[in-house]
């Protein structure tokens, strides 16, 4: 079960350094162990930096937030690319929206987020209510996992865009 051998990790890192969608900058990649379906499961965490422009045009347009992706191969169910907050207090889209002053008194709830996904994004994307994270299920194939990284980041941007502009 060691999908993440040196070669695979190096290709994922190279993709994250060079080919992420606009606005995301690679910071670091770490190997970690997750507990998935009660089994210790190797995973990788990719740390990213994201500017708050274009979401804000006030003084926050110069701020950056940390974002993070977790990739793992489930013992039984294929691969997954998740938003993470394993290192660096990274904010998932759901948590980022709820951290904004305009949402503090009127938080986004899970049901709202669930309903929004097929409308604003599409059915490739899932939402994990326990961890407040968007995720993309993937076949266990390196090309598909790599391509799904940008699918997840694009979904994150679309949800942030809708969440911020509609408020």
């Amino acid at each position, binding site marked *: 079960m060691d999908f993440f051998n040196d070669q695979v990790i190096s290709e994922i890192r190279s993709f994250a350094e060079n080919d992420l969608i606009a606005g995301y900058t690679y910071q670091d990649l770490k190997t970690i162990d997750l507990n998935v379906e009660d089994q210790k499961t190797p995973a990788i965490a990719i740390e990213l930096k994201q*500017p708050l422009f274009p979401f804000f045009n006030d003084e926050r347009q110069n701020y950056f937030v940390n974002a993070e992706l977790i990739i793992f191969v489930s013992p039984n169910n294929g691969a997954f690319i998740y938003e993470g907050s394993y290192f660096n207090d990274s904010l998932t889209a759901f948590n980022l929206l709820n951290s904004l002053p305009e949402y503090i008194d009127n938080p986004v709830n899970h049901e709202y987020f669930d309903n929004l996904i097929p*409308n604003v994004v599409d059915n490739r994307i899932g939402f994990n209510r326990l961890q407040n994270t968007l995720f993309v299920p993937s076949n266990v194939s390196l090309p598909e996992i790599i*391509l799904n990284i940008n699918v997840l980041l694009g979904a994150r941007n679309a949800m942030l865009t809708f969440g911020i502009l509609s408020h």
Partner: protein
Amino acid sequence: MKLNNSSVDPIIECLEKFILPGYQFSDCLVRNAELGEDAVEYFMLIEQKMNQFNEINDENVMLGIILTNDSTSNAVIINEATPSPAEYGLNNAYSLICNLLGNQISDDQFNQLCNQIEPMDSYKYFIDQHGCLTTMADEINPIKVVSGINILLSLRSNLITSIFE
């Protein structure tokens, strides 16, 4: 290796499956390229959902992404199509944000917006002489070409967000 139907088919298949959320692949047309006698270009017609920017706006807009071979290497040039209201109502990112704003912005303002989203010195994209977003894939490889297209689409989405905000 050259772009031809058999090298473009896997790119289309990959794009349909992994296009940036908010967009949908619609069609691919083969056309004669402006440069070179026997050169062809592949014109990807893409539909963009607008409801992430404006919840009451369910209208979709169309854009074109053109794939051509670089004449001196195996690279693929990935280029937004110039605006063509008569043809599918196509808009590139520049003309779409001018339309949304209701006035023209200067090339400098457009460059600044792009640069604030993704610094141009990351070399992920550039803006051609027609104001179209452009990038390259260094070989005819579906992952690289689709990633390049997604970089342009994400830049376009972020540009629109900056206008609505």
